[in-house]
């Protein structure tokens, strides 16, 4: 079996050093291409000239030729062919094996060039320049390669496991899992996957951050407005752009509010749907009601799609408020707010929406 240690360049034997030599590239003959016969201007005695031209034109994985430096096509071809012809081997080698060896040696001897930050071997960069020149000279349009995958063309595959995720729904126009800066967010607990990952909502890519096994989305601005504008369901799909595969994780539901509460200003509330029910509605002066495990009293209000920053106000006093699904609960720790008999208005308040909605009257007897 031939290995690269058998290669001799001129009279100099290459030593592998710490890099060693383990590559045995797959060699396939280049396909016949239509431009082959068109390119006749550059004279060369090398056996590799046609192969090199095909290889360069088929060279892939570069997204744009614009950043590649221009060069004298004839001189670059000559330089590349010279490098290829200088390699004398015990066995006949193909173009790709020779290029592989030359590029390997470039890196070992630190003959490198930096383009767009990437450290290429000098020969590799010559190939890129050569490719650019050929496209220009032959008038062949540069195309991104076919294997450049996209979400739309990705194959469906079970490539990861999502242990849990949420939230899975919100209401029209209502933020969900709202973060300090106001953006909405979903979280995904992912098991046993370390590759690149993108998250799509209804076919649209969303900003996503990964920390350890948890991915979190950032949904805000126009994207949030579009997503939550109407009642409906949106597939949540994870996409591995490296392997061009995607996997449906579930469905995110935008529920209808079935109408809105009316704000104290008289408009339809953006922050609160209809008040379905609430209670308790009365107590005696300075007397605990609906007593909780911690000894506090509690009000509950069932409402559709409450705003996450909801606060309950009782008789003008803002209460510690919690929300679980569509139930808003508010704690009365200090019974002194119940010291005066009479009606006390219960209000739902949202600072983010700058709204207050009247729930009803709590009677203190």
């Amino acid at each position, binding site marked *: 079996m031939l290995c690269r240690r058998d290669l001799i360049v001129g009279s100099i034997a290459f030593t592998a050093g*710490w*890099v*060693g030599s*383990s*590559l045995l*590239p*797959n*060699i*396939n003959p280049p396909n016949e291409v239509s431009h082959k016969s068109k390119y006749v201007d550059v004279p060369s005695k090398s056996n590799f000239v046609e192969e090199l031209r095909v*290889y360069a034109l088929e*060279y*892939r*994985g*570069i*997204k*744009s030729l614009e*950043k590649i430096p221009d060069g004298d096509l004839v001189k670059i071809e000559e330089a590349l062919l010279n490098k290829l012809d200088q390699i004398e081997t015990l066995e006949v080698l193909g*173009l*790709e*094996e020779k*290029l*592989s060896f030359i*590029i*390997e040696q470039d*890196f*070992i001897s*630190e003959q*490198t060039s*930096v*383009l*767009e*930050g*990437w*450290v*290429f*071997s000098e020969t*590799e960069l010559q190939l890129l320049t050569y490719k650019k020149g050929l496209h220009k000279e032959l008038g062949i349009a540069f195309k*991104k*390669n076919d*294997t*450049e*995958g996209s979400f739309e063309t990705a194959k469906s595959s079970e490539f990861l496991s999502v242990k849990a995720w949420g939230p899975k729904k919100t209401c029209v126009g209502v933020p969900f899992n709202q973060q300090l800066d106001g953006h909405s967010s979903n979280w995904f607990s992912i098991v*046993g996957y*370390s*590759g*690149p*990952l993108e998250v799509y909502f209804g076919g649209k890519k969303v900003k996503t951050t990964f920390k*350890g*096994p948890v991915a979190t989305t950032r949904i805000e601005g126009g994207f949030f407005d579009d997503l939550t504008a109407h009642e409906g369901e949106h597939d949540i799909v994870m996409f*591995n*752009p*490296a*392997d*061009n595969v995607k996997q449906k994780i579930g469905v995110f539901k935008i529920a209808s509010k079935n109408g809105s509460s009316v704000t104290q200003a008289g408009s339809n509330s953006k922050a609160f749907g209809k008040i379905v029910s609430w209670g308790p509605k009365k107590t005696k002066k300075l007397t605990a009601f609906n007593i909780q495990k911690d000894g506090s009293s509690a009000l509950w209000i069932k409402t559709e799609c409450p705003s996450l920053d909801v606060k309950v106000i009782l008789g003008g006093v803002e209460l510690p408020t919690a929300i679980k699904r569509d139930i808003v609960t508010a704690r009365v720790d200090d019974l002194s707010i119940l010291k005066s008999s009479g009606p006390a208005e219960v209000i739902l308040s949202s600072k983010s929406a700058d709204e207050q909605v009247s729930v009803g009257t709590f009677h203190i007897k």
Partner: protein
Amino acid sequence: MFISPSELKELNRNKVSVVIVGAGPAGITIAMELETLGIDSLLIEAGGFDFPDEYGNDPYRGVVGARPYALAASRLRFYGGTSNHWGGWCRPLDREDFKKVDDVPLSGWPIDYDEAYQYLDKAHVVCEVNGRDYDASRIEEIKPDTVVPFTADSPFRTSIFRFSPPTRFGSRYRDRVSNSKKIHCILNSNLIKVKRVEGGKSSLLVKLATKEIVEIKSKAYVLAMGGIENARFLLSSNQDISVPYGGDWVGRCFMEHFGFKTSVVYAKSGLDYRRRKASKGDVRAVISTAPSQIKKGLPNIMMGLFPIADDQFLGKDYSKNKGLFDFSQKNGWHYELRTTVANRPNKNSYISLADEKDVHGVNRINLNWQISDEDFRSVIKCSDMFGLYIAAKGYGRLKKTNHVVPKPDKMLSTGMHHIGTTRIASTESTGVVDENCKVFYSDDLFVAGSSIFPTTGYSNPTLTIVALAIRLAKHVAKDV
């Protein structure tokens, strides 16, 4: 048992054998080991059982030099110490970390790996780490196709971290301390000063929760207060004595692990340098410097590759160019190359006393953490070397994204590991404590914790702190 200030006074009259200051991983481990050896100890903790209030945490405030550093946030002043926010990363230092390297001034320990890690197995037990094997090739869950391949002559190698649950020493060993008749632990008591008394002996001035200051005398004292406080109290205690504890090196050579992202790497998709499940507990693979390169003066650095968004210039199918890569059947992907390394020992990276005093009247500290340009350049050099290696081997390409030495005032991500300020050495000409962790120019004062590390690699210090704490307890037990 946990004792009150009045019980402490009673205990002090009868003299306890060993006094340990600081109930973090080192202090608690020493107390437990001494108990096993039948030696009684007094464990003094500045905090209580929970996060301190502003007054309690006041001594952790200090001044920092040009480079910002989270002095208070990197420490926890309550029972269990920094184990209360420990991430659980465990790995012994490498053998090479103990060796002197010709091109690295002040490198090398006076004890070797085997001496330092006599009690490594026991340290694993204390830290509740099940696996002991750190050879990546023997860990089934580190699949070869998920890491960059290296051979014996490669400039890098694959290394392994293991993980403690993490052990919160305070809660995990609270019952043991509480039920012990040999361990006496007093909370909310602050060391004020190490005092020299006659004949090379010492005593401790300690301010109790009652605000009363008592002088505690014992046969041996261990400072286990953390890498900054150990130095602060030696410096503070040295202010008015003619023969200073530990000599000129106290507070010098402050080291810390810092992160530095230099590059992006294109390599085959599916590389995995995250924490993963394994039969003997979670493991994480990292890329680290090979011994051959450490001998040549390169730092023992840790690197990991983490997927990032696609690149604007190099597409994922660049690997499909025949002859260029060893994974031409697969797409490649882009990874952020994250490096972690400690600055090398440098006398000008130091802790000194600030003029301002804390609520107990002890000088605050001034931290002047200096990372030399050479330290940063050596990280860049490692990254570049890794880039050349993977390119020559057909494993990938490297993109230089940040090859500029950060300005001295740039805040860096850190490991919150305070290393080197009471360094271990053969003689007082290069260190603060001797091979047995006894402070030079003292007969009865010892130091425990990462402040004694004279050099370090990338390994997190806790496992080593615990292993050395057990070793120190064995030694102190012989002394008393």
